[in-house]
């Protein structure tokens, strides 16, 4: 057995403590949010009281029963599911086309789609808003759903995965009598399940958490999604934030994403691995 040098011990200690500090920076706000949601006091004091206390579930009851929370929940669910279904479906079709079909300008088109990833959303936000106004879509669900269905990330992710499916398998399908669209639905798509799962999860969480765009295009309160609705717990005139109710609303908002993360954790990792893999 080799002796571990003091230098290595010091290095290890440093690494672990940096990791610990980072972890705390991430975890403490969540932790505080959860315990705050079970407290009576509406104020947030500094320094925060981090003792684990369970005083009341009244905040949850209030949020669920005395606000339009269930309705907003439904809005969010509906929008996130629609965006996910449409975006993953469209992404997989175009990803497949970029991976397998041969047509003029394919690669230029693909890199153009990829290049849109480099443009920050705020740059196009005004143009997109004007487009919504012209279409008469302001304050409609489709204003939130339709623009999100074109996702360069999903196109990229799906294309990368489709290129890994052996060409021979698709050739065999051609000889077996499947037409191109049947090859997609009966061979390529079933084999790309991991890519579908990864992009569905990313898209769902992105749509669920989306704030800025819904804030711009949704005006009436009953159309709101959860991230917008949380704002309501600031109190009637905004002078008083009801921290305990607001955190309860936040915890409720977070639950689906946490459940998805826990259930599909391996796909998250896979998704990252996929998008990084060579095509």
């Amino acid at each position: 057995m080799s002796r571990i040098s003091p230098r290595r011990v010091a290095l290890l200690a440093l690494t672990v403590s940096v990791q610990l500090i980072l972890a705390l920076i991430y975890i403490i706000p969540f932790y505080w949010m959860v315990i705050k949601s079970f407290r009576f006091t509406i104020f947030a004091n500094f320094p925060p009281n981090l003792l684990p206390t369970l005083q009341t579930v009244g905040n949850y009851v209030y949020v669920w029963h005395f606000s339009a929370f269930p309705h907003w929940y439904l809005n969010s669910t509906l929008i996130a599911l629609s965006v996910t279904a449409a975006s993953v479906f469209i992404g997989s079709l175009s990803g497949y086309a970029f991976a397998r079909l041969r047509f003029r300008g394919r690669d230029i088109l693909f890199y153009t789609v990829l290049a849109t990833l480099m443009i920050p959303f705020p740059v196009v936000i005004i143009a997109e808003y004007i487009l919504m106004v012209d279409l008469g879509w302001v304050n409609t669900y489709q204003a939130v759903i339709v623009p999100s269905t074109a996702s360069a990330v999903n196109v990229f992710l799906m294309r990368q995965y489709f290129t890994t499916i052996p060409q021979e398998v698709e050739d065999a399908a051609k000889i077996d009598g499947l037409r191109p669209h049947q090859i997609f639905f009966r061979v390529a798509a079933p084999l790309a399940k991991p890519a579908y799962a990864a992009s569905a999860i990313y898209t769902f969480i992105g749509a669920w958490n989306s704030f800025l765009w819904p804030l711009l295009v949704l005006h009436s309160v009953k159309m709101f999604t959860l991230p917008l609705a949380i704002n309501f717990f600031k109190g009637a005139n905004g002078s008083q934030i009801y921290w305990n109710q607001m955190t309860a609303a936040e915890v409720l908002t977070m639950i689906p994403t946490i459940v998805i993360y826990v259930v599909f954790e391996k796909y998250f990792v896979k998704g990252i691995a996929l998008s990084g893999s060579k095509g």
Partner: protein
Amino acid sequence: MKGQEIVAARNINLEVKDGELFVLLGPSGCGKTTLLRIIAGLVEPDEGEVLIDGKVMNGVYPSDRNVAMVFQNYALYPHMSVYDNIALNMKVRRIPREEVDRRVREVADTLRITELLNHRPKELSGGQAQRVALARAMVRNPRVYLMDEPLSNLDAKLRVEMRAELKRLHRMVDAPIIYVTHDQVEAMTLGDRIAVMDKGVIQQIGSPIELYENPKNTFVASFLGTPPMNIVSAEELVGVDGLKGLSPSGSLSGLSVGFRPGDVAIGDGPLSFDVEVEYAELLGDEVLIHAKRGSTRLVIRAASHTYTGQTSLRVRLDPAKLYWFNTEGEAIRQG
């Protein structure tokens, strides 16, 4: 990606007959797989026609050509059971369920894979996967079988077994089989006729024995036979007693002499010369002697008892078993 145009195969003109096992033989990258894919309809040729039963197949969708293909990597559908892999084609054609079932079981029985029908491809060994791939081709009763190096992923022992199996299946079907391989042993043992390809061009077509005995050029000569034919520049053999008299042009300049390793004997006599032994491989009752004459390497196959570890040998050529090639490598026929 834009790249330079690559011509994979050119001026190919061949005809395959019913019941024939026709082998396309050549080194990797010689265009044989491309040719097979053109016949299958997976690739459209820039020029020329593919005819099956006299009908032009250009532009016809692969499945409508009624060809079946067995791929090098089996190309089974990983998400389907063996049963569904075999049945897919018939399901697509909406053949009644009972008929599909009967035919799948029949072909599974022939190929001895009945107990694998509910397995997924990833649970199969290489040999089993290859049988399933063959079953998928046979169940359709195609007009032509196309096989792309079907045995190359199997280990040596299994390859010999499957070769015998293929021979058996070949006798059971009437449709021609076009078989691509880079393995000359496979080509010799399976083929009724062989087309040897190199650099996208067919070098020679003929029965295995024709190609072996009358190779048209040095490529065919050195590609068939293990170990390959020795091809020595005749100038290296200047001074060998009696050789000049056998030369078709009466001189040794610009010619090459070919002789199979088994057609060289250890010993003195006419047409004999000295070689330096580099190493010898003992294969049991025979020995392969790797030797050198000047800058030329050659291989001699001899009975093991005739070689006793000498570092230099005198060897003798058989005058009836010499091949002569010109500077272009083409065989010169002797009258």
